[in-house]
């Protein structure tokens, strides 16, 4: 017999039990389904399983068996990391934390029935659902580019084979060839990411193809850590990088993947490799669930609960939460707040006020690391910035080296925090 809350409440004892642990009483162990095994989803699944000590059934749905982190994928392009070193599996989450890891695509969500349908045909029931699907691209945002062109002009903004392909294309450029990037409009995943990628591409080309040129068509007038990157490009890659911001027509861009041309403000350029990073939106499953407004899924900063459905929490890039940048660090931070809120709701465990933080490290050249960071708190309106810092231009080389080494430590820490 399946009980629900309406037919369950019959006696005062039952009411007390239902209030203290409603879902436990309704259906055995409460069930949490997490969709997406990146910095948000893997962390949330791990913290819920670890801290509930078996009191909550956790299922993690993630299509890939080997997950490549988007963060540090630029360092692979620059030759500072191998692809293997940014790949992670879900073995520990299954064996050490008892998480039911399902490698499949979530293709449907019935919010009334509280079920998730998988591409393989099975259906998962949930008491709380956590969506952490990352980003998808907005069709038609770069004229001439569709997802079908991703092999000729890779986005490389979901790490793995796309990153590998982009690096191979950069390495195959003829001497003195042209690399172009079409940068994305705000808001997008990893604000300094495109510019770290330019730095790493320049690093790679400087060694193997020093007369090559890099053109960036940017729909924005300014970007994250702009002063730091531009100083670094001048110091390390003088004369190599031509950044064309919106004031100079960088937003008026189209591409022809078959002809390998990029047209910026009417000027056609033949290119040898081209990285198109389109405009972004929440991963499609958020639209399917019907919890998006515009391109993103609005959430409460106190718990990361969807503003449209309180049984769903949305983490990371896909969420519209306020002041935090879309980064792996942010998603990891938000996951811990959501995990605490979910445990509180399902098992009555203690809930503390939400605290968030973020730091983004970027590598400009060998041992030249920079960082930007901030702390945040939840208000009723949004996640609001409290305080922050950013590396300064003109810093000493030993400080920049220490910043880079710190980023390596962070990578090791956050991936252990995600995958156990």
């Amino acid at each position, binding site marked *: 017999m399946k009980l629900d809350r309406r037919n369950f409440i019959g006696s005062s004892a039952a009411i007390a039990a239902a209030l203290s642990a409603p879902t436990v009483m309704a259906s055995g162990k409460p069930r949490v389904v997490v969709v997406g095994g990146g910095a948000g989803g893997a962390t949330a699944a791990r913290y819920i399983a670890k801290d509930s000590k078996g009191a909550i059934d956790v299922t993690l749905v993630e299509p890939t068996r080997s997950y490549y982190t988007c963060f540090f994928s630029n360092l692979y392009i620059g030759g500072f990391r191998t692809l293997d070193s940014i790949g992670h599996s879900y073995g520990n989450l299954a064996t050490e934390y008892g998480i039911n890891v399902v490698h499949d695509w979530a293709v449907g969500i019935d919010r009334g029935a509280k079920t998730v349908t998988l591409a393989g045909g099975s259906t998962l029931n949930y008491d709380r659902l956590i969506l952490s699907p990352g980003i998808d691209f907005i069709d038609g945002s770069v004229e001439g580019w569709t997802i079908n062109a991703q092999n000729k002009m890779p986005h490389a903004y979901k790490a793995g084979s796309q990153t590998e392909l982009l690096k191979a294309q950069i390495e195959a450029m003829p001497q003195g060839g042209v690399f172009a990037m079409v940068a994305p409009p705000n808001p997008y995943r990893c604000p300094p990411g495109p510019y770290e990628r330019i730095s790493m591409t320049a690093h790679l080309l400087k060694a193997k193809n020093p007369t090559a040129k890099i053109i960036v068509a940017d729909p924005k007038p300014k970007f994250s850590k702009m002063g730091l990157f531009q100083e670094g490009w001048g110091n390390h890659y003088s004369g190599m990088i031509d950044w064309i911001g919106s004031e100079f027509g960088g937003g008026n861009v189209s591409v022809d993947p078959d002809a390998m041309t990029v047209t910026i403000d009417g000027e056609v350029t033949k290119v040898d490799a081209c990285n198109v990073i389109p405009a972004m939106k929440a991963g499609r499953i958020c639209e399917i669930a019907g919890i998006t407004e515009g391109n993103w899924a609005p959430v409460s900063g106190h718990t990361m609960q969807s503003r449209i459905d309180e049984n769903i929490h949305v983490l990371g890039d896909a969420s519209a939460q306020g002041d935090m940048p879309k980064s792996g660090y942010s998603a990891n931070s938000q996951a811990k707040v959501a995990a605490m809120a979910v445990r509180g709701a399902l098992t009555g465990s203690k809930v503390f006020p939400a605290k968030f933080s973020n730091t983004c490290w970027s590598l400009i050249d060998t041992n030249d690391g920079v960082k930007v960071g*901030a702390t945040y708190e939840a208000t009723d309106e949004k996640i609001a910035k409290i305080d922050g810092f950013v590396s300064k231009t003109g810093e000493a080389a030993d400080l920049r080296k220490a910043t880079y080494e710190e980023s390596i430590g962070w990578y090791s820490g956050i991936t252990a925090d995600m995958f156990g």
Partner: protein
Amino acid sequence: MKQSVIELVKLLSLSVPFVFAAVTVQSDEIDLPSEILEIVGDPEYGEYLASDCKTCHKVTGSAPGVPSIMGVSKRDLVIALHAYKQNVRKNPVMRMMAKRLSNEEIAALAAYFEGLN
């Protein structure tokens, strides 16, 4: 063989300062009143607050560039965090993290991390 031993020694000498050194505290680093040092922290609250630390500081082992803080003595962690909070220590990430922590929250973190021996 000889080469690999040399490599190992090099590796150890590189990683030692990061692995073992950073949580040491100088006795005259900052002046903390005894009532702050004696606050008894709530380790359960400390565990929640510590989830923020674990993004960079690994629970087991350590990594270059970020020191291990697992099992560090309560007194050392309290002094280190107050040294960041008072801008005596330099790292901007740690200054920012420590700045928003109350005296009670620092005590809670110290109580939690000391228990992780």
